[in-house]
């Protein structure tokens, strides 16, 4: 096993990886931007080194600087987490060249799956069902794409070849909308990924998003760790994930699991990956893409299988074989994850920034919170607005739902606007409880965070007490000789509303 591992990430995932490293007796090394100087991920690691700068490009995306730190401080391996450098083949290659283990698939594996057009072709060749579509070549013009779109049949979906996270995606309902949509899509793709290549495929209406966790070792063994359903999405980004999927029958699960393993074996995949599928209303499934990293939602798999996926990643990266066979894996119960974001669900999910004034995550049996923030953490514009992940386990889906609902009602975050109440609405929705979850769930059921009902008197009373109490505290701090009374009027000196 490794002696020292650098975590090339921030936020909750960096904290979570450090926890596994420490439990395994491996020294954990954090890196941090200026803004993250005293962030939880820095405080939770054994060692921490600055990257300087604030934006992702200046800090967490600076592969050469991270490798330099790793070499200088005797790091054996780098865990990239998710996002940032996790799916960057050049970075994985640079690690290899520097004699440092990249905890993830090989640069070749990342490259092969990173280009969605290539990946889809490889899967189709391996006999994995794919969405009917056309990828074309760089030299093919818009006319050819229009012809192919017609052949596939409208509605069609335009997608950036190098895309991800919902950027550079457009649904085109009819032929006449294609030229404008294609232009927008190309522009978005070029801006977001530096590659304007776009492909077209059949638009599957009301699909579910079901993905399979896969693990391969360097001996060529591949297993799947069952599915996660991630249909609840806003702006094409997942916010609620669960396992098992309420939609899969044992037969369908078996077929999809086999396809996922076949997909991984086709490209000699090693380490953790996720094979994403769309499942239509008839129960037909289509390969979507492979994510060559640890997923945000990996904890639900950990909860039902009793496994630490980061520990497993480390063992495989260190050359050990998979410690279990497919047959030995028996998931237990049901797990759900909610992503807690600093965003305003009532205003187009705009990110909310500010300083966290109060942070009290819920706790109790079978409740796990992976936090990237703490009280007084500043949520800045520089990074993703996900604050934490709330994961619960239950013997049944119903038990897990009730536990999640309770936990969301007990999750206190003050200082930034969060999606907690929005998540409550989803979890307690009748259709969600019935397991009728599709990727357009939030739109179809018009889920709104808008609070309903009058404000309880208790809220006003609590607000008055909090205001009074904190004003009193502020005054004590000024040391102006009036320290003992919390009933002084601070506004008299602030010249506001004086003496009204």
């Amino acid at each position, binding site marked *: 096993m490794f002696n020292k591992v650098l975590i090339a990430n921030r936020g909750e995932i960096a904290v979570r990886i450090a926890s596994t490293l420490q439990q395994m007796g491996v020294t954990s090394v954090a890196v941090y931007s200026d803004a993250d100087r005293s962030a939880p991920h820095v405080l939770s690691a054994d060692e921490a080194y600055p990257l300087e700068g604030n934006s992702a490009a200046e800090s967490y995306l600076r592969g050469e600087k991270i490798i330099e730190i790793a070499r200088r401080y005797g790091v054996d391996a780098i865990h990239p987490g998710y996002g940032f450098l996790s799916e960057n083949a050049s970075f994985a290659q640079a690690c290899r060249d520097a004699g440092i283990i990249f905890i993830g698939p090989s640069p070749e594996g990342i490259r092969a799956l990173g280009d969605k057009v290539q990946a889809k072709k490889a899967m189709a060749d391996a006999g994995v069902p794919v969405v009917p579509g056309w990828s074309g070549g760089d030299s093919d013009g818009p006319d050819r794409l229009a012809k192919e779109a017609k052949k596939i049949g409208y509605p069609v979906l335009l997608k950036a070849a190098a895309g991800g996270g919902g950027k550079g995606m457009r649904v085109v309902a009819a032929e006449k909308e294609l030229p404008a949509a294609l232009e927008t899509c190309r522009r978005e793709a070029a801006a977001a990924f530096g590659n304007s290549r776009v492909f077209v495929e059949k638009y599957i209406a009301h699909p579910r998003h079901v993905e399979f966790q896969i693990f391969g070792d360097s001996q060529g063994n591949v297993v799947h760790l069952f599915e996660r359903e991630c249909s609840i999405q806003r702006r094409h980004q997942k916010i609620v994930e669960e396992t098992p999927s309420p939609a899969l029958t044992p037969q369908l699960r078996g077929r999809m699991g086999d396809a996922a393993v076949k997909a991984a074996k086709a490209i000699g995949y090693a380490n953790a990956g996720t094979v994403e599928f769309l499942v239509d209303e008839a129960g037909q499934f289509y390969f979507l893409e492979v994510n060559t990293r640890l997923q945000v939602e990996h904890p639900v798999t950990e909860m039902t299988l009793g496994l630490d996926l980061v520990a497993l990643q480390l063992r495989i990266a260190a050359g050990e074989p998979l410690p279990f066979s497919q047959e030995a894996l028996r998931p237990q119960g049901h797990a759900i994850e909610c992503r807690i974001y600093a965003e305003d669900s009532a205003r187009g999910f705009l990110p909310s920034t500010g300083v966290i004034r109060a942070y009290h995550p819920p706790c109790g049996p079978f409740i796990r919170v992976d936090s990237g923030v703490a009280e007084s953490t500043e949520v800045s514009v520089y990074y993703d607005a996900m604050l934490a992940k709330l994961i619960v386990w239950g013997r049944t889906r119903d038990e897990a739902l009730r536990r999640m609902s309770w936990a969301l009602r007990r999750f206190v975050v003050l200082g930034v*606007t969060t999606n907690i*109440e929005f998540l409550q609405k989803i979890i307690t929705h009748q259709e969600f409880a019935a397991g009728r979850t599709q990727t357009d769930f939030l739109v179809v059921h018009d889920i709104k965070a808008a609070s309903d009902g009058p404000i309880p008197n*208790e809220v006003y009373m*609590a607000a*008055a*007490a909090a205001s009074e109490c904190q004003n009193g505290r502020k005054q004590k701090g000024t040391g102006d000789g009036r320290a003992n009374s919390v009933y002084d009027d*601070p506004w008299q000196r602030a010249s506001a509303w004086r003496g009204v």
Partner: protein
Amino acid sequence: MPIVHLKSPSEPPVAIELVSKGSSGSLRYQAKCNEQTAEVEISITDSGNGSVRSARGTEPFAGSLTDRIVEVWFGGRTYTLEVVNQRTRRTAGSHASAPVDELAAPMPGTILRIDVQPGESFEAHQSLIIMESMKMEMTLSSPHSGRVIEVKCRAGELVPMGRVLARLEATKNDDRTS
């Protein structure tokens, strides 16, 4: 004892009178809502966590004050209120003439609209100026009726917190809190 005037974006202002203070460890208040005598007991710690005890039972809350915006988590929801006026009950006869007051920006932001002219009279809780900050609209009003002496801002202007936006004169003998 202090009276705290609070305003939410959706409801008319509410006045909370903290009627008595207990001690021992955390602060304890008894509060009266809008002059009604339905009293509750509030315990609160320095960090802003506490509980409200009423006839319905004891329920926890968390509160945080930043500038004049107070956020309260209660019953699984988070509420944002503005402290529009907080002061101590005045003893009788402490003022002889109509006081001149300043309406200051409770937060940094943009002036969206000015609803009154200098010299104009206004009613208690009438909208005087509307501000926007952090994409949130806030109506500035006075808990008392009065007259506008001077308006010191323009619509569209970006103002820092505490900036005096208008000077007001309260109507004589209209100090309902004394």
